[in-house]
Structures are given as structure tokens and as C-alpha cells.
């Protein structure tokens, strides 16, 4: 084989692990999926809202901490006066029971907290996961065994219990959002590491990598030049799935009262204080709950779109994507072995299944998986392992 064929082989060849083609192609494929575009738009909007929180609050003329005792019915448990949580021209989404703090301001600032923590945690998960996954995949047998066992420990660890314990012992002076990002990030990198390791192992045996080695490249150079580009698609996809999981985790910890400290607002903190009010002031509960729901859904749909756009063939094999796309993929595969492939990886549907995949061959699994994907970090990493193994 010449050097030329070496570089072209992965793109044109029939290898199942084709690296992504050009960015323009990815964008074209992403655009063809309205759900993903809508999800992406919501994500962009949320990021803008979070970034512009001070501006938005100033526009409304409120802040997150000022009390408004006059807006509460003190005799009735300090519930907001007026309708639907005290919505008015001054307070666009009403005020908080017990304090009279402005809910719109707290929500937009809460978006900032929640997204920043989730983003920080996800970046940390990717960095740690890629580094350890690469090291395990490229290292000798001893390094691989050691790192893989360490990864196993982190994947199987009851993260919630561990997080609670960690948060309890750190002094209260430490900035809470940073701490939350650190704890969430450093506890949940196992899935990424496993995916990266599996990818590296699969690629390592491919000719183009072997050729790079034969040509005298160091391990580090091979990793950087040949392997990392091939990792972009799966890692990006997995990160996009982890992000909403991290948002939910932050909300969960704040809900349990060990998240951000007062008077900082986050969606989880708001849900937590709102939990008892669902009958007396339902607006207070609905707002953060709805936002959290929309955010997680948008991120998940978007992540799925990105995944398919980056690697349409893999997505076809996994039985995700629209029915039309799947039918096209099935025709291409011409029947041979396609059916069993779809069956064998139904577990992966938990990660990738979306709302636009009802009625598929693995319908029930996909339906139950889509809720699990949003809620459970464990199911995400577990499926990741399965996916690695399937290859």
C-alpha cells in the first residue's frame, strides 16, 4: 500500500469505523433533521439567555435577591398575592412564596448556574475520559488492565452517594458551583473513557494506524495525528448526551439541598423550594420544571442529530434516526445481517433513542430508553460499554 491509499482508505473504504467527513457535509446532514435543528435552536437560545441573564433582569428591572414582602399574603403562608404566582408587569413570571423575590430574574440567573455547572462538568468528563481512554487503549497490557479497572470502579460507583459525601466534607467557603462541576466531572468520566478505549483498540489494528507506526511515528504522534480525529464523533456525541445528564444531576443535588448555596439560584434549587408548593402555588413549581424538561429534551434531541450527522452509517446500524433514513439504510445493507445488528444493539438505544423514533423494530426499548437517557448517568455509561463491546 502506498502512502496515498493509506490516507484515503478510511474515508472511502468499507471499514465500519469511518471518521467523519467534512464539516460541511455534517452540517448538511444535521440540517436535514428538523428535530435536531429545533433542539439546537433551543440550546442556542438557552445559552443566550444564560449569558445575558444580567441584561434580561435589568430589562425587567428586578434582581434575584430583593425581598418584596408587600407582594405576599402573609396570613396565608406567605403565598404570592394575585394570579398564577403573582404575575404582573413588574414581575413577568411572578414572585417566590415566602420571600417575594422575582422569579424571572431567578430563572434566568438559574439557567446561568445550571448550564455553567453542567458545561464545566462535561468538559472535565471529556478531558479526563479521553486522556485515560487513550492511555488505556495505547498502553501496554498492565497499564490497560489497571486503567480499565479504575474506570470500572468509577462507572460502578454509586455516584450520588459519593457526591453527597464529598460535598458534605468540603469546607463551606469553597465556591459551590466550581465544586459541583468538579465533583460531577471527576466522578462520571468512566463512560467516555470506555468509549475512547474501545475506539482506540478498534482503530489500532487498522492498517492506516499500523502504517503510521511502521513509518516511525511515536505513540503520541500516532494518537494525535491518527486516533484523535477518529474520536471526535463518538466523544462529541457522548458529551452532548452527558451535558443534559449533568444538568439533571446538578438539579438533583440542589434539590437535595446540597447543591448551590443561598441566595444563588439554580433550577434544582428552585424545584427544591417549590416542591411543597405544588398545590398552593403551582406556577412556582411549573416554571423551573418546564424549563428543565425543555432543556434536557432539546439537548438530547440535538445530541442525537449530531450523532447521526457525524456518522450516518453507525446510526443506521443502531436503528436510530427517522424511519425513512432507516429504510434507506436497510436497503443499502441489502438484508444481509442487518436485522441481527439492529437486534443486538438494542441496549444502545437507551443512549441514542429519541422522540422521533416510535414504532421502530425495537420500539419498546427505545421508548423506555429515551426517558432513561435523560435521567440516568448510569444507563448512559452502561450502554456506552455495550456499544464498545459490540464493535
Amino acid at each position, binding site marked *: 500500500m502506498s502512502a496515498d491509499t493509506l490516507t484515503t482508505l478510511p474515508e472511502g473504504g468499507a471499514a465500519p469505523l469511518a471518521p467523519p467527513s467534512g464539516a460541511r457535509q455534517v452540517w448538511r446532514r444535521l440540517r436535514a433533521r428538523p428535530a435536531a435543528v429545533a433542539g439546537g435552536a433551543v440550546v442556542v437560545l438557552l445559552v443566550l439567555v444564560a449569558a445575558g441573564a444580567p441584561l434580561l433582569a435589568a430589562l425587567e428591572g428586578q434582581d434575584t435577591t430583593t425581598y418584596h*414582602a408587600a407582594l405576599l399574603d402573609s*396570613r*396565608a403562608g406567605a403565598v404570592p398575592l394575585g394570579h398564577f404566582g403573582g404575575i404582573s408587569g413588574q414581575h413577568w413570571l411572578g414572585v417566590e412564596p*415566602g*420571600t417575594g423575590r422575582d422569579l424571572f430574574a431567578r430563572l434566568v440567573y438559574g439557567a446561568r448556574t445550571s448550564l455553567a455547572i453542567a458545561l464545566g462538568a462535561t468538559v472535565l468528563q471529556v478531558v479526563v475520559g479521553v486522556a485515560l481512554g487513550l492511555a488505556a487503549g495505547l498502553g501496554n497490557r498492565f497499564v490497560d488492565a489497571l486503567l480499565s479497572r479504575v474506570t470500572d470502579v468509577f462507572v460502578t460507583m454509586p455516584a450520588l452517594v459519593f457526591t453527597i459525601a464529598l460535598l*458534605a466534607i468540603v469546607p463551606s467557603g469553597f465556591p459551590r458551583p466550581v465544586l459541583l462541576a468538579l465533583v460531577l466531572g471527576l466522578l462520571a468520566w468512566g463512560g467516555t473513557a470506555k468509549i475512547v478505549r474501545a475506539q482506540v483498540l478498534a482503530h489500532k489494528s487498522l492498517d492506516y494506524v499500523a502504517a503510521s507506526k511502521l513509518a516511525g511515528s511515536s505513540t503520541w504522534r500516532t494518537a494525535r495525528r491518527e486516533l484523535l480525529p477518529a474520536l471526535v464523533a463518538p466523544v462529541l456525541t457522548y458529551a452532548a448526551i452527558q451535558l443534559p445528564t449533568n444538568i439533571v444531576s446538578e438539579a438533583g443535588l440542589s434539590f437535595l439541598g446540597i447543591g448551590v448555596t*443561598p441566595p444563588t439560584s439554580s433550577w434544582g434549587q428552585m424545584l427544591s423550594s417549590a416542591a411543597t408548593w405544588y398545590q398552593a*402555588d403551582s406556577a412556582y413549581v411549573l416554571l423551573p420544571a418546564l424549563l428543565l424538561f425543555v432543556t434536557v429534551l432539546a439537548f438530547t434531541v440535538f445530541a442525537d442529530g449530531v450523532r447521526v450527522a457525524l456518522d450516518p452509517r453507525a446510526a443506521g446500524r443502531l436503528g436510530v434516526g427517522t424511519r425513512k433514513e432507516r429504510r434507506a439504510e436497510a436497503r443499502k445493507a441489502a438484508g444481509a445481517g442487518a436485522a441481527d445488528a439492529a437486534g443486538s444493539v438494542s441496549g444502545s438505544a437507551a443512549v441514542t433513542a429519541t422522540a422521533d423514533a416510535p414504532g421502530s423494530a425495537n420500539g419498546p426499548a427505545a421508548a423506555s430508553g429515551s426517558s432513561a437517557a435523560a435521567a440516568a448517568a448510569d444507563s448512559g455509561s452502561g450502554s456506552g460499554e455495550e456499544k464498545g463491546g459490540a464493535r
Partner: protein
Amino acid sequence: MHRLSVTPRNLGVIAVGLALAGGAVACGPKSADSAAKSGTDAAPHKGGTLYVLNNQPQTNFDPARLYTSGGGNIPSLVYRTLTTRNRANGAAGNKVVPDLATDTGTPSKDATVWTYHLKDGLKYQDGTPVTAADIKYGIERSFAPELSGGAPYLRDWLVGAQDYQGPYKDPKGLPAIQTPDAKTIVFHLNKPEGDFPLLATQTSFSPVPKAKDTGTKYADHPVSTGPYEVVSNQNNGEHIVLKRNPEWSRATDDQRQAYPDTIDVQSGLDQAVINQRLSAGVGKDADAVTTDTNLGPAELAKVTGDKALASRVGTGHFGYTDYLAFNPKVKPFDNIKVREAIAYAVDRSTVVDADGGSALAEPATTFLPPQAAFGYTPYDPFPAGASGDPAKAKELLKEAGYPHGLTVTLTHDTNKGGEEGPEVATAIQDALKKAGITVKLDGLEHNAYDDKVYSVKTEPGLFLAGWGADWPSGGPFLGPIFDGRQIVKDGYNFNSAQLNDPSVNNEIDAINKITDLSAAAKRWGALDKKIGAQALTVPLVHPVYKRLYGKDIRNVVISDWTGVLDVSQVAVK
């Protein structure tokens, strides 16, 4: 009341505080007038089963181990004591009345010797007569280390009781308690204690027949003197079933009504579940009450809009004060002007709302609760109106040398919805901001919080605290907080200001000699006012307790002593 053996007492007080914070212990249904109404519109029916739905189990159901105020609610159905609290609505319920004794006690001239005579015809559930020696034995049991818990006062008050190890190790007993005949019991105290009749309401003053004492197992089948006897006690008080005691006679007990035939106390229920069950009132829940679960702000908001439900809410005023505590040994709180500035800056209207609104908390400017029995004397040394006076606070800060404001740290409990919790802390933070004081919050988990703020070694400069007394009197309310001899160096210390002022200490001693409780109350009120001017605390609110009771519940009586509906008075339709 000085030289307290610190640990057990503090544990007890903390237990009370904790329970209150969790909405668990104290309080109850019904404003006085609506209680009176339901008492008259239907003659109480005798018989039936009363269900008590509680969150906290009634653990250690042994008279030597229970730490109660006024004999407790459920315990008082089984254990009669020398004296007891008056079973009446409101302020009248703060009175102490005779129970086993013929009167509330005869003091010697200096209130160091107290003599009681037992009523005639007192019997245990097995028909044997109650003797003064049994009461002495019951008290001696409470000193046994095997039976931990209980109030520690007697160890401090009785002559030569400091190192007594209980009747199992030391059968000779306590010479400070004498029983000249079967119906007379005499207590010799090492200092004057005008409050002794109030202490004699506690369950350790209940008789235990020596022959029936099974030690640590006594709690499972105690020998009753009250209107009910224990049928079963599962999992250390998680589920207690009581039935009528045939040997109890209303002729010797004018306090307990004992209408139902059976009382079933189920604990370990979630508080939201208890309130939901009581409001729905399905089946047996119509015959149910709770003695430890308050309505929270959101539940109250819902109940307020529902007339039928609102008529089933009882209101109780347990003597309790939530306050900002200063440690004047920490800068800048050594400067009284800074403390005064904070007192002016505090906005009590937002604190009240943080505690659930005006139905669940009343603004406080005095340290003593607003009840005559405590000696309540209205005063406000730093009048700042309903919502604070930040301008006056700024002025004081300037005088104190902080013209550009200052930054302080407020330590609080992270327990949500608690009276020392984050809601109150952020309300204070917002109010002080208006006066140029930046408040940093230091939230600690409940136990860590208690350990930090109640130790003189780690006590922060500013924190949230609350206090309730073991009986309705100024002594147990002011003593532990302001008596210099009660500063505890190596244990839980509640004298947070570490005030050791001889004039205050002397006045406390002088009032303890007074056996006329209402005369003593006046002096406690004056003392409170005098201490209040030093701005060692900023009283924030006196909590109010609202509780639901079932549809078929009648004769609801809520005394200020307990703030909770009295189970011994309740009838089931």
C-alpha cells in the same frame, strides 16, 4: 439552677429544639375560641378509638428516661406525676396543678424544702395502692446510668445527689428525699427553687413499684397510674397501643378526661403524609390527630382557602423565641453600636414570611415569649418598625467607625424550613444589605451547626438560634442564656453572649427564692428588659403552631404550656 450537669440537659433541650425545628414536637391545633366552640357544640362522646399520626416515635417510654415538659402528651396518659399542667386552653394552661399530690407543694420559708401529700385512693393498674416510697424509687431510678435520658435538674437541685448512681448500684437511695409515711414525700434542695412545683410535672416524678421494676425493659410494660395502660409498644415507641385502665378513677384525677377507650399512636410517618391524611380524613383518619406535625407554609396556604379544612386547624403558642445571637468576643460584635445597628436593620416582616407568614410566626422584640407565665413585659429597645430602620442602622455604624458599611458572616443551619434555616438567613442578609452590611452566609449541616455555635471554642460572631424552656417560667428561659455561671467551657453552651454580669446572676438567685410564681414572673420580665438593652441578641420571631385534626375529633384543648392539643382531653365523635 446553676451548675447543671451539662450533657443530658443540653441534649434534652436540643432534642426539643430539633423537634420544633422539624415541626415535630410542640404544637397544636385550634385557636382558643374555636376550641371552646367545638367543646360545646357536641357533648364529648365516651368510647371509640383515637388515632395519633406522628412523625417522631415516642422512644424510651420509661418515666425515668422521658424528657418531657409538663409530663408530656402521650406519656401523661399512663404516668401520673406529683403535679401536672393545667389542662385548659391558652394562658390558663400554663398553670401548674396537683395530680397525685393534694396541692402543688408546701415550701419551707426559703424554698429549699418541699413537702407533698398524696391523695387518697390512688391505685396502679393492678389495683395495688400508690405509695410515697414508689415516687421516691421512681426518682432514684432516673439517676441510674442504665436508664439514660430524662431531665437533669434533680441531680443539681437535690442535696447530695451529684454523684448518685441509682437504686440498682446504690440501694440505700437518696437521703435528700424522705418519706415519713406512705402518703408524704419531702424534698431537700441545696438552694432555693420557687419553680419546684413546675419541675414536679416531669415524668421522673411518677411512681414506679419496686417489685414490678424490670429495668431497661420497663418501657414495654410500665405499670400505669393514668387513665390508660400500655397494650403494646413496638419498635421502641414506633407503634404504641393504649387501652383504658379500669383502676384509674376520675375521682382522684380532675385533669384527664379520657374519653376514647383505645388510643393508637402510630409514628414514623412522613409529615406531608400526615397532613394529607388528616385533611382527607378518609376512614379511621377522621378519628385522628397529630401531636408533632405542623402545617407548613404551603399547606397553610391551601388550608386557608378551604373553610371546612380551616375549621379543623388548631393554633398553639408554645413559649419559644427565635433570635440572632451575637458573640461579643468576636469583632466587630464587641462594639454595642454594631449590635444595635443590626438590631435596627433587621426586617422582621421578611423574617416572618420566611417562617411561613404571620399565621406561623409573630414578630418578637423581647427575649421572653409573649406569655404572662414567663413574665412577658413588652419592650423594644431598638424600635425599627415592622420592616427595619436601615437609616438608623447606618447612622450607628458610622458612630461605630464603619462609615462605609462592613462585612459579617452569619452562621445558619442548612435544614430547610427550619427556624434557623437558610430561608431566615437570606431574609436577614437582604435586610442588612439595605443598611450597608454585607452578610456572608455560612450554612452548616444540622449537627455540625449545633456543634459549632454551642461551643465556646468555636462559637461564631453571629448566628441564628432558638430557645424554648422546659416549663413556662422565666427561670429556665433566661437562666441558661444569660446566667454567667451557666457558661459551659467543655460542652454545649447556650450562654452565647458569654454574659457573666454579677448583677444579672444575683437577680436570678433572688427570683429563684420567690415561691409566688406570678410575683417571680414580674421580676423575670424586668430582668429580660434590662438584659435586652445590651443588644446581646436580636429577638426575631415567636413561632405559632398550626395543626390539623380529624373530622370527628371533639373537645380540642390547647394549652400555652405545650402548644399542642391535649390527647387526654380529646373525644372521638
